[in-house]
């Protein structure tokens, strides 16, 4: 075999090996970052018991994302899967339009190879300022909230998701700074009269 052919053959073999490694890594990452077949649960969680589906709209920072309802905020496997198809309403928090604190969380950034179209949905959340409008829309009604404040807290500052049933609050949560999991950016808003 000529030297030229040996080089071609070597390049070919190396390409096959590298390709196989990449495929294995992608497969493992998919398994780690969440199940692939989640259609059933996503469909179930896009509606409340009355069949409503909700969308989060924040015009000042160009956000429009479906809200996946009743996502367990303590189960990372579950919420990472749900976040592939929108932002997540935290299970146990108030449903949109109900008294209490509606908690919605989403990605500020995520692995580029992970599935989903909402990996940076909350990357501009820090741009919101007091008085900005946040909307939650469904086929039946549009709910409007005004931003009260924006703050950065530690991951264990769970008081931000506490419920006060005398109010209609909306709390948006995401990892901060974008690209890290160090802190959480929390935006609190109150339903407009």
């Amino acid at each position, binding site marked *: 075999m000529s030297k030229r052919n040996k080089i071609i053959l070597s390049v070919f073999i190396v390409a096959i090996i590298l390709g196989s490694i990449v495929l294995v890594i992608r497969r*493992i*990452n998919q398994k*780690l*970052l969440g199940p692939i077949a989640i*259609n*059933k649960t*996503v*469909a*179930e*969680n*896009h509606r*409340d*018991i*009355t*069949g*409503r589906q909700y969308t989060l709209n924040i015009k000042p920072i160009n956000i429009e994302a479906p809200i996946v309802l*009743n996502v367990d*905020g*303590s189960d*990372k496997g579950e*919420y990472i899967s749900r*976040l592939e198809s929108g932002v*997540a309403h*935290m*299970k*146990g*928090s*108030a*449903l*949109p*339009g*109900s*008294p*209490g*604190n509606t*908690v919605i*969380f*989403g*990605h*500020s*950034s*995520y*692995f580029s190879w992970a599935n989903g179209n909402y990996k940076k949905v*909350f990357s501009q959340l820090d741009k919101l300022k007091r008085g900005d409008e946040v909307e939650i829309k469904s086929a039946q009604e549009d709910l409007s909230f005004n931003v009260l404040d924006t703050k950065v807290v530690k*991951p*264990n500052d*769970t008081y*931000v*998701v*506490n*419920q006060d*049933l005398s109010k209609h609050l909306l709390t948006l*949560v*995401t*990892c*901060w700074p974008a*690209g*890290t*999991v160090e802190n*959480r950016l929390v935006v609190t808003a109150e339903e407009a009269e």
Partner: protein
Amino acid sequence: MKKVLIVLASVLAVVLPTWVIAGFTGDLGVDLHTRLEGSSDNSTWLNYTAEDNPGDATLSVSAGDTVYLRLKTWDTSDTIVANSIVYSGTFTNPQYVNTPDFLGTGTNDDLDGDGVLLYSLTSYDSGSGSAVFGLNGIYPSSTVDTDYESGGITFTTDPDTPDQTVILATVQITSAEEELWISRAPRITDRALADDPSTTRVRILVNNPTATPTPTPTSTATATVAVSSLPETGPNLLSLIYRWLAMISELF
């Protein structure tokens, strides 16, 4: 020896397809039909747009009632058996479809009672109201009245279904195999006595005059949401590497 093998292969190549194709009567082979019928009392059956019912026939029930559906399948071809028939089915407004009992429980999969060819449920997604199910076979020369295969689906409408809600139950054949003596790849004429060539449908109207027309969402709020830390919505590379290594170690 080589020449003998070549000759034998040539003979098989010519004769075998001829023999299989010759087994089909007519150009279409299997002539499958299917029809979904609905009933509120398990005895009087309606099909939405079937030939023997007026167009737009609607099964009218009350909220909380049990709805009975039966799916008939038959094959009017003379000799060709249809095997491995696969159907897809959907309910609209699936949130008002409670405890659906789909073909395959041992009671609903063989309404015609021949004990031979049975329907079986592959999957049902209560969120989207979509199902996949199958029938392991249907004999030729069957009709809508004789030798058909029949399976049942029952469910109860939710007691809180808003008044005048319509639930459309639709079934479609998605694939099947024809067989004479040798199984063939799918070659199917899927048909139904319904409003288009490939689907059959029952329209169910739910009456609930005392219900609030548009129910309000139910709050799930609790005093404190049970999380020990706020969700991790960013890329945690260290965690990923740790889990990645753990998974690799499991492989060995």
